């Protein structure tokens, strides 16, 4: 994978191994459920077995007297919270949770009680003894007949994006078209299913709480937990050193975590809750089902005259969370007339939430499938059609892109893939029983950042200790921050100790929206530069220093040596400066905030994804022999972890395209395939040779490091690229994900 390593940056960009790799493969990395907490009690959640109604009775007598049981919390006896059943913060900052404040049941699998015991086994056995009766209502489970919900609530698209947009005159644009295409695309309910189950350990000492929480955002967690339990945020410490995958579901504090905090206060000892795999279906969010209508109009020469993208997604009875599927379509292609809109319907399921590229993953499936359909309607090569409508500026706002290398991605990807050898006609490429299909699509994800802080300490021996709250979802935050700090300090990464995952450290935002590298990286860079600046200042003001009297701008630091650029013989180490100046560590802290760039510019990462499928013409089985993807994602901090993350996104997309779907029983509202055995994600044998690369892209405006987030772009575009390949192979256009074999038989 190519990278854009800066000249004076020996570490950033390098394919450095994970600094926490050894800990992880040896079991030394402690995940939340493994944190050693003395005297911890174990809690097991009781969940509803109906989808809608009320809890009538809960017979907990047997559970209460079962061996080892300490407490059983139900809507009847649970302590009342300051905010009652209302969210402590407006969603989605705070979620509408099931904290036993009322007896209402909104979905099948909703938390309705908690059993606390001395061991997990005792708690599990006792939970099975609780007998619950309900007053049932008929659940609403069908999006086609479900009532609508307002789109003004918690589910508004991220950032400042409106729910609906209009530009130009769509009807006139469509009327002027020579060719029109109108299709409906659907994407299913999905669950995030990280390997690490959600886990919480809550420990009160007086009115101070320590919460070990598997979290994508320890600071937002602190805020909402404090508010929920009526204590000041500074009384709450949230710790999370490692996350075994998040994908969005760990971006919120869900019911089980709050119940653990509640129970710990009730029983007067630490309480641990680890969800079961089944409990990952419903109580911790998922991607909602979407129904997306797309209309395209184009001139014979391929010029788009009109785009309409209207998406309806499902939400719960609890919140109005919206999947912003049509947002990416706004800026993507240079059609003068465009309409986008979002609608919501309410059904009896768990509240949906951010799931890896929320909006972009589902939305690019629809728009990039439609672009392929239109290319076929026009008899145009799909890349040529996209280039014909290439947006040189943000098609919606007219703002300049901070950088955009999509043209280079198309061209590099096409060449690597051998795209020119493709024959356009469906079913025109065969190999024995296999129909071969080649498909491509555009990938895109916005570039964001939020305020973040970090601290850096240069130790008297020249090593450094750098800290920033944040979290590492398994993406490589520990590693890339070590590299960023090393370069800023001018020392080797081996001499940097980077720590994260504790609200005692400088404040950082949620690891969501692919913003951690940009946000935390900028802060780490600034804090390290500030610490270095302090030592440089000491040196140039120190008559004993060979650097005495020099200008700070003239001082370079490499390999821990401060050296004058104008006279390289004048040099000394961090250690020498510090030793002469009190021998104490040098500390600095910095906070970095986004500037005006988001107002002035349109900031996105782009990519081009090419896939080959082999479809068995009799059996319908789809295999993916290869994926080639090329991205323009700004500066790459670590070629190895970046490749892994983009590749992981592509695998995620293969799952979304071909197998992932949460099945809801149409009568009971029960999550039917609530296990990793029946909820299919790709296994190794489904994962092909994946070739990921980046094109050089210098973006001086997005943030000080010039990085664009890479956590989510990987699973955009890929689904459409696969659907388009399946069409090319079979002549069958599947507009309903996942593309299982029965849909192509």
């Amino acid at each position, binding site marked *: 994978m190519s990278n854009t390593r800066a000249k004076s940056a020996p570490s950033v960009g390098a394919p450095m191994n994970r600094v926490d790799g050894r800990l992880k493969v040896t079991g030394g990395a402690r995940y939340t459920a493994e944190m050693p907490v003395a005297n911890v009690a174990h809690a097991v959640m009781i969940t509803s*077995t109906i989808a809608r109604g009320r809890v009538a009775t809960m017979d907990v007598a047997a559970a209460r007297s079962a061996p080892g049981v300490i407490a059983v919390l139900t809507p009847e006896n649970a302590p009342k919270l300051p905010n009652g059943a209302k969210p402590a913060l407006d969603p989605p900052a705070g979620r509408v949770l099931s904290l036993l404040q009322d007896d209402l049941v909104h979905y*099948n699998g909703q938390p309705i009680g908690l059993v606390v015991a001395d061991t997990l*086994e005792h708690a*599990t*056995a006792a939970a*099975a003894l609780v007998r619950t009766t309900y007053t049932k209502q008929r659940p609403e489970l069908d999006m086609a007949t479900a009532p609508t919900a307002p789109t003004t609530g918690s589910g508004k698209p991220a950032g400042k994006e409106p729910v609906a947009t209009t530009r130009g005159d769509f009807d006139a644009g469509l009327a002027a078209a020579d060719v029109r295409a109108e299709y409906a695309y659907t994407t299913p309910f999905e669950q995030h299913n990280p390997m690490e189950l959600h886990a919480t350990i809550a420990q009160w000492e007086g009115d101070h709480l320590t919460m070990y929480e598997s979290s994508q955002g320890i600071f937002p967690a602190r805020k909402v937990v404090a508010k929920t339990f009526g204590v000041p945020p500074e009384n709450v410490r949230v710790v999370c050193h490692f996350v075994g995958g998040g994908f969005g579901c760990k971006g919120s504090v869900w019911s089980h975590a709050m119940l653990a905090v509640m129970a710990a206060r009730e029983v007067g000892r630490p309480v641990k809750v680890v969800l079961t795999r089944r409990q990952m279906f419903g109580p911790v969010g998922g991607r909602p089902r979407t129904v997306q209508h797309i209309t395209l109009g184009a001139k014979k020469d391929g010029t788009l005259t009109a785009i309409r993208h209207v998406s309806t997604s499902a939400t719960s009875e609890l919140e109005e969370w919206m999947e912003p599927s049509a947002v990416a379509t706004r800026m993507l292609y240079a059609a003068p007339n465009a309409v986008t809109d979002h609608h919501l319907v309410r059904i009896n399921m768990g509240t949906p939430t951010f799931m890896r590229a929320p909006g972009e993953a589902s939305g690019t499936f629809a728009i990039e499938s439609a672009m392929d359909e239109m290319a076929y309607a026009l008899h145009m090569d799909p890349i040529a059609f996209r280039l014909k409508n290439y947006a040189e500026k943000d098609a919606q706002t007219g703002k300049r892109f901070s950088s955009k290398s999509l043209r280079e991605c198309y061209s590099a990807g096409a060449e690597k893939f051998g795209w020119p050898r493709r024959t356009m006609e469906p079913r025109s490429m065969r190999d024995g*029983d296999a129909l071969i299909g080649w498909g491509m699509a555009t990938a895109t994800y916005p570039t964001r950042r939020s305020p973040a802080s970090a601290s850096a300490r240069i130790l008297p021996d020249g090593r450094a200790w750098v800290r920033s709250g944040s979290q590492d979802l398994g993406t490589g935050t520990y590693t890339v921050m070590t590299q960023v700090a090393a370069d800023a300090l001018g020392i080797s990464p081996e001499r940097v100790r980077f720590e994260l995952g504790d609200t005692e450290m400088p404040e950082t935002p949620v690891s969501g929206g692919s913003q951690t590298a940009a946000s935390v990286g900028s802060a780490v860079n600034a804090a390290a530069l500030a610490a270095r600046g302090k030592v440089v200042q000491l040196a140039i003001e120190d008559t004993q220093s060979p650097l005495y009297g020099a200008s700070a701008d003239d001082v370079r630091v490499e390999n821990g040596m401060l050296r004058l650029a104008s006279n390289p013989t004048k040099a000394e180490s961090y250690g020498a400066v510090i030793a002469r100046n009190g021998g104490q560590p040098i500390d600095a802290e910095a906070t970095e905030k986004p500037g005006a760039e988001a107002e002035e510019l349109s900031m996105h990462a782009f990519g081009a994804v090419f896939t080959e499928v082999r479809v068995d013409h*009799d*059996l*319908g*089985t789809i*295999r993916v022999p290869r994926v080639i993807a090329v991205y323009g994602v700004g500066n790459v901090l670590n070629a190895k972890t970046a490749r892994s993350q983009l590749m992981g996104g592509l695998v995620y997309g293969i799952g979304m395209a*071909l*197998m992932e779907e949460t*099945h*809801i*029983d*149409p*009568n*009971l509202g*029960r999550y*039917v*395939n*609530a*296990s990793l*055995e*029946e909820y*299919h994600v*790709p*296994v*190794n*044998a*489904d994962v092909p040779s994946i070739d990921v690369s980046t094109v050089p892209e210098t973006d001086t405006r997005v943030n000080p490091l010039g990085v664009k987030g890479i956590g989510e772009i990987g699973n955009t575009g890929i689904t459409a690229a696969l659907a388009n390949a399946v069409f090319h192979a079979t002549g069958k256009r599947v507009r309903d994900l996942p593309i*299982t*074999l*029965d849909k192509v*038989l």
Partner: protein
Amino acid sequence: MIPFDYRLAASIDDATRAASAADTHYVAGGTNLIDLMKLDVETPSHLVDINALDRETASLAQVTELPGGGLRLGALARMSDVAWNARVRELFPVVSQSLLLAASGQLRNMASMGGNILQRTRCPYFRDTATPCNKREPGSGCSALHGFNRTHAVLGTSEHCIATHPSDFAVALVALDAIVHVRSASGGERTIPIGEFHLLPGAHPEHETSLRHGELITAIDIPALSFGNRSLYLKVRDRASYAFALASAAVALDLNDGRIRAARVALGGVGTKPWRSREAERALVGKTAAPAAFQAAADAALREAVVHRYNTFKVKLAKRTLVRALTQVMA
């Protein structure tokens, strides 16, 4: 999971005596039973662990030759051991293939022959105690009939149950007329032809096999079959590995100059029990081994299929799977 007690059996007699008590279950590899206990679907009070019985009787965990030319698979032999056994691969490739296409490497290293043919259905309603299921709780109703039934059976169903039998291996066994050897607590031994081992759901889907309480499977015999080496197992599923069959076929053909002298056909993923199709076999015998005969066999095999809302595709898929298997076994 509810509390239970556990005993490691020292001998076959010890095991069968212990298991004759009420509410007692044998456990071998544990790859199915323990899962179901965690889900509270199986709730035995006593477990009798038979994993150490091969210390007393080594053949329990081995593959041995039968005098007439077939093979005896010890009940405790692991899926992976049998799958990679040279004689199994040589005489009955269909058996080896059915084992290797099932589960995962880790599971195959644990799961036993006896346990494999006793594995319970993967019907999600059977595995979820919060939903009605006639198999798990007789008389409670069948959630799958009008629920999400994409993976469910189209052959051998009843109005009480449409759950699919999950085993791949058992499909190969029914094609090969295997014989199941069992021992009871009294020391009595009997044999059960594999075709009579699994029961149709009928009005009592809770009764899945003809085993009597406490009986222990000791071996599965695969009788000699002159054309067993021309056999094949084909499995079609939703992903490349680690998924249950949507449709599968175990076939063996005896060819004479391009004509089919004898045929064995069984289907998986579509039946409430491992599905031997004598109708398909009749359609093949005497015919030229060619697409027309294979298609006729497939049509015959699925003639009685009963579909539900989400599994209608299985009829077409099963037919095509069988045709492909017959085509491939010729190659």
